[in-house]
């Protein structure tokens, strides 16, 4: 769950981490109404789930009311990499003298959190990392131990951070670590961490990525996720605890299966034969006939879907349940063709039920067979 900048700032403020004290607007009118509430000069930052907004004109400045109104209209008509700007974060512009970089992320290989700091930061941080890796201080944070003073001391000493910034750095790094752990983050990054003209450190931008599996601990973020999820089918699927995954614009095949591994294998095999999958849905374990019906309904709501490959290999899943779910859905899936592969408990029962299905249901003997059937019908 990648938080937009303004949401990250909300969390910063909750932890009293020095950051821009701005407000978010959801329309040009709301943004224009910031006049008088935020002092000029103002910075207006588009909130979109993609990078490169600066180059796309997504960050604007306003010196006065007139400029604010012009920029408000401009931004809310802007598209950044095809994404319309739906929210703009506005704040008093910070005068800065220097940019630094601070992040805490997860090293999956080492299975530890790692803190990265560079007294030089900003948009060029990747270039700095490549060309001057010595400028970056990387330190692994020991698991199951609190953040230690000596760890922050090491980061400051090894980076040669100026004495006058150290108190602020310790404060901010400590709070960022608390956010990282308490919000179950996969990433908490401040870039740039700036030195203001008053010589204080301040988070000018914030990227926070929160573990989806831990959202149950953070109701506020969970609601925010639904709010910013663009795809209604993803939302709809989520409400049944299914995972709906958009894959390719051009395809017409949907894959439904009971596990991400099988979904990936199915997509791999279909793609290898030159066909395109447009979306997939992961049922998870223990699907009942009612849940199968909902899954088929949701996938069929994607207008691109013409063919559904239902590939079930259950340890637990009962094939008769699946078959009954399919039978109950057929009348609602008028224009859709189904390839069904069933394996697991009560397989025979399930196959017997499907014998009386319409000719829009084709049975497959296995994954490879299913893909062959798809190929015969759709392939070049």
């Amino acid at each position, binding site marked *: 769950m*990648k938080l937009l900048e303004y949401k990250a700032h909300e969390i910063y403020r909750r932890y009293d981490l020095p950051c821009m004290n701005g407000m978010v607007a959801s329309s040009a009118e709301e943004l224009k109404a910031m006049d008088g509430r935020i002092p000029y000069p103002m910075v207006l930052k588009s909130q979109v789930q*993609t*990078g490169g907004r600066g180059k796309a004109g997504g960050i604007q400045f306003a010196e006065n009311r007139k400029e604010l109104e012009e920029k408000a209209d401009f931004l809310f008509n802007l598209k950044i990499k095809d994404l319309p700007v739906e929210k703009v974060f506005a704040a008093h512009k910070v005068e800065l003298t220097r940019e630094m*970089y601070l*992040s*805490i*992320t*997860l*090293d*999956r*290989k080492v*299975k*530890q*959190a*790692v803190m*990265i700091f560079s007294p030089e930061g900003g948009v060029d*941080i*990747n270039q700095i*990392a490549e060309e001057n890796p010595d400028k970056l201080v*990387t330190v692994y944070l020991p*698991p*199951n131990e609190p953040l230690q003073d000596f760890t922050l001391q090491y980061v400051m000493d090894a980076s040669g951070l100026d004495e006058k910034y150290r108190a602020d750095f310790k404060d901010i790094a400590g709070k960022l670590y608390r956010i990282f*752990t308490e919000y*179950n983050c*996969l*990433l908490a*990054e401040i*870039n740039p961490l700036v030195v203001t003209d008053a010589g204080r450190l301040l988070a000018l931008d914030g990227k926070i*990525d929160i*573990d*989806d*599996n*831990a959202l149950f601990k953070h109701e506020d973020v969970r609601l925010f996720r639904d709010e910013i999820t663009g795809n209604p089918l993803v939302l709809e699927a989520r409400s049944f605890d299914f995972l709906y*995954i*958009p*894959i*390719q614009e051009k395809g017409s095949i949907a894959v439904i*299966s009971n*596990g*991400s*591994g*099988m979904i*990936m*294998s199915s*997509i*791999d095999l279909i*793609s*290898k034969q030159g066909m395109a*999958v447009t979306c997939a849905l992961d049922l*998870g374990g*223990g699907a009942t006939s009612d849940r199968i019906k909902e899954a088929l309904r949701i996938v069929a709501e994607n207008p691109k879907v013409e063919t559904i490959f239902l590939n079930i*290999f*259950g*340890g*637990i899943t009962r094939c008769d349940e699946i078959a009954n779910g399919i039978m109950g859905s057929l009348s609602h899936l008028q224009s859709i063709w189904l390839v069904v592969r069933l*394996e*697991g408990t009560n397989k025979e029962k399930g196959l017997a039920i499907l014998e009386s299905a319409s000719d829009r249901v084709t049975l497959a003997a*296995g*994954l*490879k067979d299913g893909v062959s059937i798809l190929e015969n019908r759709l392939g070049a």
Partner: protein
Amino acid sequence: MSFLIDNETRLIVQGITGREGAFHTEQMLIYGTQVVAGVTPGKGGAEVHGVPVYNTVMEAKVKHGANAAVLFVPPKFMYGAAYEAIISGIPLVITIAEGVPVHDMLRLHHLAREKGCRLIGPNSFGIISPGKAKAGFMAHRIFSEGSVGLMSRSATNAYETVFLMQQKGIGQSTCIGVGGDMIPGSPFVDMLPLFEADEQTEIIVMIGEIGGGEEELAAAYISEHVTKPVVALIAGKNAPKDTSMGHAGAIVSPDGEGSAENKEAVLRAAGVHIAEGTEHLVEIVEQLIKGK
């Protein structure tokens, strides 16, 4: 021989009074596994399919000499249950739950190592030593005793593979679901020495997928320490790329790490046979067996 679990394993089921826990306890008993006790806090004194239930792992361990635990508990409660099992000195803990918070697993991954516990999963189908015992929820009918050792991040891909093996009469020594979540308790590289040392295992099958660096770590180990043939499948070549965020990821992980291309390249360099799909994988295994 088999390893991790066998007829001697004295298994406890945490969450035994739940729907899944009770159902799979029965399945495991049917398969011949010694399920000696169940644990559900607050349900001590109950019985499930003739198995006594306790409030704590410690009591189950002390009274029944339990030496392994399988956890049928929801992801939210997995941390607490696994923590109790590890702290209570259970040397093998298998966790089934899918979608365990990553930070919970960060803690447990290291805690288990430090306390001398092998933590398997989460998001694992469990472990099965065909013909001897199973701890997990896998459909055991498709498994049979043989010489192929299998480990997989995905349950469904493992089933598919074993199913295809069954059709060709190829059996397995031990099959391990290392689990599909971001931080496994015991990744591939931890299992390799066990397969290498196991007399019954002649071929090692590793079913990985995109993301993370476990296949890369395994490749490094294989090239140094594994003499048995290894066949690998990397699923997810055509899955949508996760749009990464921020710069920290690029700083921590080198370019391309986690991609199917990279994984296949390093595995191939380590002498591993790369399969295009499950069907292909089983074909390679069949040839290796015939070639012996």
